[in-house]
């Protein structure tokens, strides 16, 4: 009898993989193990819409009914403790053991911890729905929220906190917000938007000390300023969850190292989503690790397919988005692959920056604008990037030439 497909990690990636196994017609046992008490759910709303209402709600990827109907066994609130590769068994924290034919590690990432003493219960991180609930309780008019880190989590949270009337300070050690992966021209617009909405953004200043002071937290900056807050949220990046894989002797390289088919150094174990590093075909096999919703989804589906023997290589172009106030940012590709930028203006102040490599190849596109004004052009750019196209810079920059026409060329 088949031991079945076992998935460790019941987030976007693991959840999608389980559904994909059924979509692909697999009829053996499918087991999804998660350490949270909830159904598999979407994380992007946690720093956005989930905070907007009075009572955050979970956006489940699959309901109890769908899981039951599709015979997906969901084991929640437990951790995977060890993989016995020889026996093809995973031992769980509750003492039970689950056999597998193929195993998928979709263990995700966890917030990078701020390596400082003095962090009390009012210094928190955002990763899970329960984290979001705890933060939401502090977002009220006049309450002082300090956010450490001017990345996406921090800035989206700042926008949500402002909407609810909180007093918000963002502390970023780098000279500007969104240093990683976002062009300065776009980061500047986001910075200005936050300031216009009343967020105090402090860049280029390090934290010298943090101390709990009664119900308050006092942050001393190296530049001499003191920030007093009722809640401190730390959003300084994420680290892949690799402990289980490392202890099982799998190769680790900035995440669980997988090949183009998302297979680890053990042919019966796959890894996908935030926890893995993989060769990105569109940039000549450059090894990357992505922390993005769509990547988690796509790799979950691809891993499912390859667990069933499809032998399909990863070929997608990275893509992510961020919503802050009424603005949406979308980026496809990795802009650090580019050496030249061409700007294309759209209606309503929206614009796209096309990033071209030395040889003229389009390698990334970054867009910002109100609502979904940049979505279509970014999607077309993504297709051009996937085709390794070398569109003329003049055509990219011209509003009158449709991007779709470049795709056909």
């Amino acid at each position, binding site marked *: 009898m088949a031991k079945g497909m076992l998935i460790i990690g019941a987030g976007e990636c693991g959840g999608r993989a389980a559904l994909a196994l059924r979509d692909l017609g697999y009829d053996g046992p499918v087991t999804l193990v998660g350490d949270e008490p909830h159904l598999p759910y979407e994380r992007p709303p946690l720093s956005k819409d989930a905070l907007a209402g009075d009572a955050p709600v979970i956006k489940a990827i699959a309901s109890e009914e769908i899981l039951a109907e599709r015979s997906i066994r969901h084991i929640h609130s437990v951790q995977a403790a060890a993989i016995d590769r020889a026996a093809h068994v995973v031992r769980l924290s509750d003492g039970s053991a689950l056999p597998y034919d193929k195993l998928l590690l979709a263990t995700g990432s966890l917030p990078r911890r701020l390596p400082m003493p003095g962090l009390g219960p009012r210094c928190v991180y955002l990763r899970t729905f329960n984290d979001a609930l705890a933060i939401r309780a502090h977002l009220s008019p006049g309450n002082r929220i300090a956010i450490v880190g001017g990345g996406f989590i921090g800035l989206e949270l700042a926008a949500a906190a402002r909407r609810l009337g909180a007093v918000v300070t963002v502390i970023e050690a780098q000279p500007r917000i969104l240093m990683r992966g976002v062009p300065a021209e776009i980061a500047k617009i986001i910075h200005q938007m936050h300031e216009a909405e009343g967020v105090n953004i402090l860049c280029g200043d390090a934290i010298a000390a943090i101390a709990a002071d009664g119900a308050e937290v006092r942050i001393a900056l190296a530049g001499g300023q003191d920030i007093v807050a009722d809640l401190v949220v730390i959003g300084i990046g994420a680290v892949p969850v690799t402990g289980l894989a490392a202890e099982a002797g799998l190769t680790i390289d900035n995440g669980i190292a997988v090949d183009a088919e998302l297979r680890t150094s053990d042919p019966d174990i796959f890894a996908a989503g935030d926890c893995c590093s993989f060769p990105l075909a569109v940039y000549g096999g450059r090894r990357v690790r992505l922390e993005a919703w*769509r990547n988690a989804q796509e790799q979950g589906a691809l891993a499912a397919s390859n667990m069933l023997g499809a032998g399909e290589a990863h070929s997608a172009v990275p893509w992510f988005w961020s919503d802050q106030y009424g603005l949406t940012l979308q980026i496809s590709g990795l802009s650090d692959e580019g050496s030249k930028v061409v700007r294309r203006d759209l209606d309503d102040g929206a614009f796209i920056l096309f990033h071209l490599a030395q040889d003229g190849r389009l390698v990334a596109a970054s867009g910002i604008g109100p609502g979904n004004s940049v979505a279509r052009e970014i999607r077309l750019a993504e297709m051009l990037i996937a085709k390794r196209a070398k569109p003329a810079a003049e055509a990219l920059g011209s509003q009158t030439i449709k991007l*779709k026409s470049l795709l056909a060329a």
Partner: protein
Amino acid sequence: MSDWVEACGADDIDEEDVMRFDHDGRTFAIYRSPDDEYFATDGLCTHEKVHLADGLVMDDIIECPKHNGRFNYKTGAARGAPVCVNLRTYPVKRDAGKILIQIG
């Protein structure tokens, strides 16, 4: 139940493109296919209520601008994650250069 409503002119939409149409508190998306036929669906994605008219039309597929959920706009069928609920479609006719939809 013959409540046909004029949505736009036939030339208002390019081939293989989409346009938003609001009527009586409701929102729709009107499509012109690459082979010059017209179709109509509900205007909002079934995943997170985003206007589909900001999305990209490729052949008979409309892709949501937010999370790339895909639908066949001719049938309303959901075509892959994250969307799983189909879109409602509406009859469309072309009359004297106008596009009309039966919103029922």
